[in-house]
Each structure stands twice: as structure tokens, then as C-alpha cells.
């Protein structure tokens, strides 16, 4: 059974002006089991990672990342975005089993 995909945390700057390039920081709780480790009985612990992250703005894909087991537990991903207009972000994390968890965040312009 796949490990739970924890609560996503997304941070946008509080004050954003139109045309400004902002940093969007995301964090999700996940073990990111590499598939390289063994348990106490010597059995390989199966790989179980978040393998894909997608960020959409108003339904349009603006950034994505393919993750490998070399990404640390509780993956931290930050990227840039040019804030031209207000709208809604949707962020989705998907694990090896194909299960996903999403979060939304509204971009408001000052």
C-alpha cells in the first residue's frame, strides 16, 4: 500500500503587483521511499515516491516536475511565475501508484 500523501503547503507572496515575477513555494509531506533501502529482515522496501508535480494557472500548465527517488523526503519545490492577472492556481502531486493530491490557491493582485 502506498504511503499517504500528506497535507500540501503552498506559499505565495502576500502583496503582488501586476507584471511582477513571484516565487511560489510548495511542500508536501511524503516519505519518498527510494526502493534502495532494506527493512530489518533484509527485504527491500519497495519504491514509493511522488513522481510528478504539476502547477496550473486558470487551467493552463505553467510548470511541472518529474521527481526521482533522489528528491528528499517531504519534497520542497519552488518556481517562478509572472503575475499578469488574478486567477486560481491548482497544484497536483502524484505518487507511483497514480494517487494524487491537489491544492488550490488564488492569486490576487494589489
Amino acid at each position: 500500500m502506498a504511503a499517504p500523501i500528506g497535507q500540501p503547503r503552498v506559499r505565495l507572496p502576500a502583496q503582488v503587483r501586476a507584471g511582477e515575477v513571484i516565487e511560489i513555494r510548495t511542500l508536501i509531506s511524503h516519505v519518498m521511499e527510494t526502493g534502495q533501502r532494506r527493512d530489518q529482515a533484509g527485504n527491500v522496501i519497495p519504491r514509493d515516491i511522488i513522481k510528478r508535480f504539476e502547477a496550473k494557472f486558470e487551467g493552463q500548465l505553467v510548470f511541472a516536475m518529474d521527481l526521482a527517488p533522489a528528491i528528499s523526503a517531504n519534497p520542497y519545490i519552488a518556481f517562478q511565475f509572472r503575475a499578469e492577472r488574478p486567477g486560481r492556481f491548482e497544484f497536483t502531486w502524484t505518487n507511483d501508484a497514480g494517487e494524487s493530491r491537489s491544492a488550490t490557491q488564488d492569486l490576487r493582485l494589489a
Partner: protein
Amino acid sequence: MHHLKAPTRRGAMGLAAAAAAVALLPMPASAQLSAAVQAAVDRVRGNRTAQEGRITLRAPPIAENGNTVPITISVDSPMTAADHVTRVHVFATGNPTPEVAVFHLTPAMGRAQVDTRIRLGQTQDVLVLAEMQDGSLFQARSEVKVTIGGCGG
């Protein structure tokens, strides 16, 4: 006390060595890569030649804990529809599997910069390839000295 002083001295030597490596050895990315790493890089590169420049790879020269090593990659690009970075590939040259991440970038980002935290099993180089919208390829490489390995054996 002796064992407490040793890491400090190693750390200082590591810093000096890292500085020397940066100063004296602007090696091509193909230098000293293992077969597995070379194969992974070649899958991205195809028949293209990777140029130096345009990429700023920020990684700590010494990582106390290889389980979580922060990296920041930025690429000098206007990020317009006609001229932007499409993909950024990250490899760890000394990990059991070299692939670390592929970032997919779009002009909507406005600036080609990404951050994440990676695992490094031992002291090694982090290698970055950036693909541009016109198909051109750029590379950067940076050594990280790892005090405690991060792949959990």
C-alpha cells in the same frame, strides 16, 4: 577532543579543495562520468553538444546531511514564447541512479529559476542540463562534499 577537531580540519581542506577545483578545473561535463551517468546524460543530449554558460547552479560546497541538500538552478533566458527554457535536467553523478529531476518550464514563469532539495549518497558532482526552446543545450556542474550520506542503506 581529537575526533571533534578532525571534521573541522577536513571541512576546511574540503573548502580549499572545492575552491581550487572551481578555480583550476573548468572541466567539460563529459569528464570522468561513470557509464551509467554518461548514458543518462546522453539520453537527454542525443547528438547535441552542451555548451557552458547561462546556468547558475547554487548548491552548498559542503553538505552536513546528504539527505536534504538544497539546490537552486537559474538559467539566463528572457522566457518569452519565442525564446525560453523548456526543460532542466538534474543528475547526481555519484548516486545509485543518476537521474534526480526533470523540470518542465514555460514562458508563463517569466524567470527560469527552480528550487528543490535532493539526496546525495556521497561526495559527488551535481550536473545540470538545460534545454532551450530552439533545441540548444547548456550545462553546469558543481561538486558537493557530503559529510553524512543521504541514500539510507
